[in-house]
């Protein structure tokens, strides 16, 4: 494909015109690396864990806090948001109730594909609008079972303390009988729904600003946290300053 360089391109390269331009493109690869590192670290996740430390091991209060802060008062609609983001049917982080989603190989076997199940919408809001993506990724919500043994308690605690990279906690939902102690959003499973069926799913909760940020922090940590020294293993021999002719 032929690329035509515009005046703006020349300006970006520090040249006034084609005649002034040599064939070389000078690149600062180390600078690119520094930019990328800011998007790929555990700093946010670690700070969140630290912020929640005042709760110590009082998981009841932790859960109480989540119940108060995680959801908006009502499910967000174009009307009750004064159309600030235009009209929409579904948003990222919405909890939906549907029979139309599929879960591949469920980890926790409380899943019956023929029954209504709850899911949280994972992709960003613009991706889940009608006629955009054909399929939409979801995380299935599994109601937290009564915390009557050590194993269940330890999972619950790890999730509430943000020490579990594969389960996201969602508190009980107003008007929903299931999940009296909340729900586990299972990111270890693969769940998905066809977009046009998502649009007709029943939305039962929307995330608040803090809830939405927490979900996104979780997703970033879940998908991109670098294991120790992985970057070193991937290091290639490229010059810090590069000149592509």
């Amino acid at each position, binding site marked *: 494909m032929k690329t035509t360089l515009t005046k703006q391109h020349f300006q970006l390269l520090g040249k006034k015109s084609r005649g002034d331009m040599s064939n070389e493109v000078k690149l600062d690869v180390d600078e690119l690396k520094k930019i990328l590192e800011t998007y790929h670290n555990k700093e946010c996740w670690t700070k969140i864990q630290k912020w929640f430390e005042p709760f110590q091991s009082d998981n009841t209060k932790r859960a109480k806090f989540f119940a108060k802060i995680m959801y908006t008062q009502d499910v967000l609609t174009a009307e009750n948001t004064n159309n600030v983001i235009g009209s929409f049917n579904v948003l990222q982080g919405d909890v939906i109730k549907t029979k139309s989603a599929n879960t591949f*190989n469920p980890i926790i076997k409380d899943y019956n594909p023929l029954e209504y199940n709850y899911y949280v919408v994972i992709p960003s809001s613009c991706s889940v609008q009608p006629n955009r993506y054909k399929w939409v990724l979801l995380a299935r919500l599994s109601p937290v079972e009564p915390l009557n043994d050590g194993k269940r308690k330890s999972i619950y605690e790890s999730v509430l303390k943000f*020490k579990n990279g594969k389960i996201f906690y969602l508190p009980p939902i107003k008007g929903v009988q299931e999940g009296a102690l909340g729900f586990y959003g299972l990111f270890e499973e693969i769940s998905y729904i066809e977009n046009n069926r998502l649009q007709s799913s029943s939305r039962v909760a929307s995330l608040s600003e803090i809830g939405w940020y927490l979900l996104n922090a979780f997703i970033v940590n879940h998908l991109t946290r670098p294991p120790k020294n992985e970057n070193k293993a991937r290091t290639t021999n490229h010059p810090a300053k590069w000149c592509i002719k």
Partner: protein
Amino acid sequence: MSKYLAVLSNRDYNLTPVGRHNSWSQFTRSLGSATSIISAIPAGKFLEVFDNKFNDDSLIIFRRCDFDNLNMLSSMSSKISRCLMQIDKMTTTYENAKNPIDVFSLIHEQVQMAVEFAVVPTTTSTDDYFSTFELENHEDDSNEATFPTSRKEIEG
């Protein structure tokens, strides 16, 4: 506190036996390759291997998924083969292991989509060894911790 979490039980898997081998070498002679295991164990079935080396326990090989209609990827095939080799080494490890739970962990690290391997103590086979997985570095502080018991406590 156990660092193992039993999420699924035998009952949940609803597995049924498909065969039994009385020694590991007998098993590897007849089903020592990935393709032969796939065809010998249909989805939802399990095969049990006994061996003196396992003491009173048995090795369970089972399938949760139905991949019959798919061509098995070569990568999956090689993973299963590697797993078989590892179990082969493990038979010695198991014999000498001070803590058999470490060996279970070793095998569970090999869990694949099509075939899973597990060592199940025959004596306690009603327990949840069919699918345990390790939690990530949990602190052992649950004894002091408080937990909600009802919705009312959370919604306050």
